[in-house]
């Protein structure tokens, strides 16, 4: 990417709240950025590492509830709670990861077990009163930077921008690191990787911890933005699916895939909403169909499609 294009991109990104006067569209950008963070997080474990998690909601919910409970029930500073959310979610990642990987769960079995863990957390948190029980948890509206609540969307936008950009940066750094190379090797052929000295358990644990922590931060942001949580929402399959759909649609295992996928999905969802109305379930039908179609016809995602279209036909080697 040329220097000029990159600089323009950064300037535009920073100027969005000033340039875009519709609260709705700023909110839209916030959603895309939040989605990018979590999609990138899933991509670290699933795209780079090849371990498909179907229960990433476990990390999202942990982050969301940790931040909410620490701040609301225990009066901890919202930003500290935010950091703690990431740490807590990362810790959950270590636990789930250690149990799953130590016992050799791969492929579909790993996907299933992550789903089970998310459900366990959903039920457990739903039965605990101080977390609001099944009814849900409301975060009191206390506008103020210290409380990580902002008067206008602009404040939220900049936090989301930092998170989204940070996520892309993590992916960028990972691709150039030894851990990234080893994760990809594990993805391609785990036994061959072991024979080359790769401590596969350690690498996968690192991946799931990073992935979990990032997703947890997303959950914490969500809590402070929407000010309402309930176990079904925070730990439910909706989050788990959304988090894996974006990288798959955008381009699994790439740096920008999660962002492109997140943007494409939110855009498509918005258009669908305008054309078909806001009926319950309709957008998810659309997402489900998109998942099937992408896996069948476009396994490399939109980035893969772009690459194929931009490259001149190479002679078959």
């Amino acid at each position, binding site marked *: 990417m040329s220097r000029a294009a990159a600089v323009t991109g950064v300037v535009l990104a920073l100027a969005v709240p000033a340039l875009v006067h519709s609260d709705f569209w700023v909110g839209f950008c916030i959603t895309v950025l939040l989605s990018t963070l979590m999609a990138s997080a899933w991509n670290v474990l699933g795209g780079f590492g090849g371990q498909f998690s179907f229960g990433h909601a476990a990390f999202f919910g942990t982050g969301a509830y940790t931040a909410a409970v620490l701040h609301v029930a225990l009066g901890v500073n919202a930003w500290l709670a935010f950091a703690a959310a990431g740490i807590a979610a990362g810790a959950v990642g270590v636990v789930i990861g250690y149990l799953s990987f130590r016992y050799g769960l791969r492929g579909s079995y790993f996907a299933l077990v992550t789903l089970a863990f998310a459900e366990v957390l959903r039920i457990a948190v739903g039965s605990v009163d101080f977390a609001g029980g099944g009814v849900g948890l409301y975060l009191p509206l206390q506008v103020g930077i210290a409380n990580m609540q902002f008067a206008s969307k602009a404040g939220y936008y900049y936090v989301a921008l930092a998170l989204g950009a940070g996520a892309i940066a993590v992916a960028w750094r990972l691709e150039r690191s030894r851990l990234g190379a080893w994760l990809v090797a594990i993805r391609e052929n785990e036994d061959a990787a*072991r024979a*080359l000295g790769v401590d596969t358990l350690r690498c996968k644990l690192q991946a799931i911890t990073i992935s979990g922590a990032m997703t947890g931060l997303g959950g914490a942001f969500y809590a402070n933005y929407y000010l309402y949580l309930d176990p079904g929402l925070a730990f439910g399959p909706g989050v788990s699916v959304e988090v894996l759909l974006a990288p798959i649609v955008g381009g699994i295992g790439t740096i920008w895939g999660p962002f492109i996928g997140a943007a494409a999905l939110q855009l498509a969802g918005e258009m669908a909403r305008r054309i078909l109305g806001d009926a319950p379930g309709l957008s998810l039908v659309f997402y489900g169909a998109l998942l099937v179609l992408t896996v069948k016809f476009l396994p490399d995602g939109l980035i893969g499609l772009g690459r194929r279209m931009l490259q001149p036909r190479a002679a078959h080697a």
Partner: protein
Amino acid sequence: MLEVRGLSKRFGGLLAVSNVSLAVKEGEIVALIGPNGAGKTTLFAMISGFLAPDAGSVAFAGQNVTGWSPHEVCRLGLARTFQIVQPFGRLTVRENIAVGAHLHSAERKEALAKATDIGMRLGMGPLLDRPAAALTVAARKRLEVARALATNPKLLLLDEVMAGLNPTELGELIPTLRTIRDGGVTILMIEHVMQAVVSLAERAYVLNQGSIIAEGAPAAIAKMSSVVEAYLGHGAAERLGRVAAGAA
């Protein structure tokens, strides 16, 4: 350098490896031969940490590595290739080799540079940027060796690396392996291709039905009746002897 003592492995009712002992000294090229199903790959799997032996011990570079996991053994300096090649399909040849190089190089640039260097030394220069999945069988075998070499091993375990190669390809790989040994890497190779065994190996072990039945220089072993019988069946040695005597 490598000392295997009394190694055994049982799968259900089948005793795949039975009380096998062998030794490889530094700088040697030793071959492990025997008919199909003799247990050679199982033996490799135990030595390299992919399988836990039921009995016996493996000592490498002065340490008891019995039951160690593959990556620990590799870090100590023992690298292996697989009988059925296992490339990282979607990565380029250079990236494949770099995975091995990363064992001792934490920086990406350094690992990639090392990978390029090893790739060229093994004659894979023009292939470095191709995806591994697009390679021919011979090239993939070379890649297996290159990758393992990138981990800076003291001992290389090669599992049928000559299988499926035509005479030209053999003619290229055999001297390459000799060069690798001359560069300071000890080699233990499972091989069926006798030409390779005879031209490369100083010593050979013969494995049949899980047990070592012979050991010695390849030329001498080929004449031993027990070895002939292992490959050609009971009574074959005697029949061959009669034929030879009749022809004399």
